[in-house]
């Protein structure tokens, strides 16, 4: 276990996934748009959901207002 907590879940994969979720999108479409393999999209979306940055609408996923805020903060550095 690391001696410091790691709170930043938004690596480049997380950012590119979040950016595709402005409208409800399937995981297959996220994979196609980001160029990430589907297994990475599944894991990334799961972590984003656990962090409250995305939510599921039937078989699609969409960014939450918290997700938008996080992206804005990230962009500001």
């Amino acid at each position: 276990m690391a001696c410091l907590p790691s709170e930043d879940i938004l690596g480049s994969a997380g950012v590119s996934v979040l950016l595709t979720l402005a409208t409800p999108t399937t995981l297959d479409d996220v994979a196609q748009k980001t160029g990430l393999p589907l297994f990475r999209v599944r894991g990334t979306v799961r972590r984003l959901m656990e962090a409250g940055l995305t939510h599921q609408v039937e078989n699609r996923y969409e960014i939450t207002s918290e997700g938008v805020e996080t992206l804005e903060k990230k962009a500001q550095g």
Partner: protein
Amino acid sequence: MESKIEPQVTEARHLPRIGEPAPPFEAESTFGPIRLEDFRESWLIFFSHPADFTPVCTTEFAAFAGMQDELKEMNVHLMGLSIDSVMAHIAWVRNIEEKFGLKIQFPVIADSDRKVANLYGMIMPGESKTETARCVFVIDPEGILRAVIYYPMTTGRNVEEILRLVKALQTTDEHTVSTPANWQPGNPVIVPPPRTQEMAEERMNEGYDCKDWYFCQKAV
């Protein structure tokens, strides 16, 4: 004198077997928390190695990295595992990139508590009670374990053989055939033997290349 005999308790563990669903798990990896189910709809070569920053394992990672593009074309992913930490894995894959010019594009599980290693029978206590052996599990897109290979710590794997194995399995699934010894893609495949006497009699006239009724090959 009364002798006291202590009962010996042996833990019976059901290890994964070919043809059964691969046991599900969630683990920390160099790509973050990862679940086996994340790989469904793809083939997976799930392999363990004894330790990071060791020479034989480094040659294996370099060899696996060298076939990443071909595997991607085949809808096959790689996933490694050892008992080292995520930090150690990160340092090692960065070192491989720096020293060998090969980017490791697959996740490596940090199985510090040996949860996954024990689940898959990756530890060979006769060889090492702590480190994982060189195990390979080929898992199909439905999550079924299709092949298992074990190598000892001293012997690096032949990744070309693992690639050949996956190609053979994919050919089997696509054409409902078997593959003979030393088969390579493009070679003839084995037609499933007839199940009845009537089918055996017909088999020799079905246009296959037959040595006898039970041994027929065809091109695919």
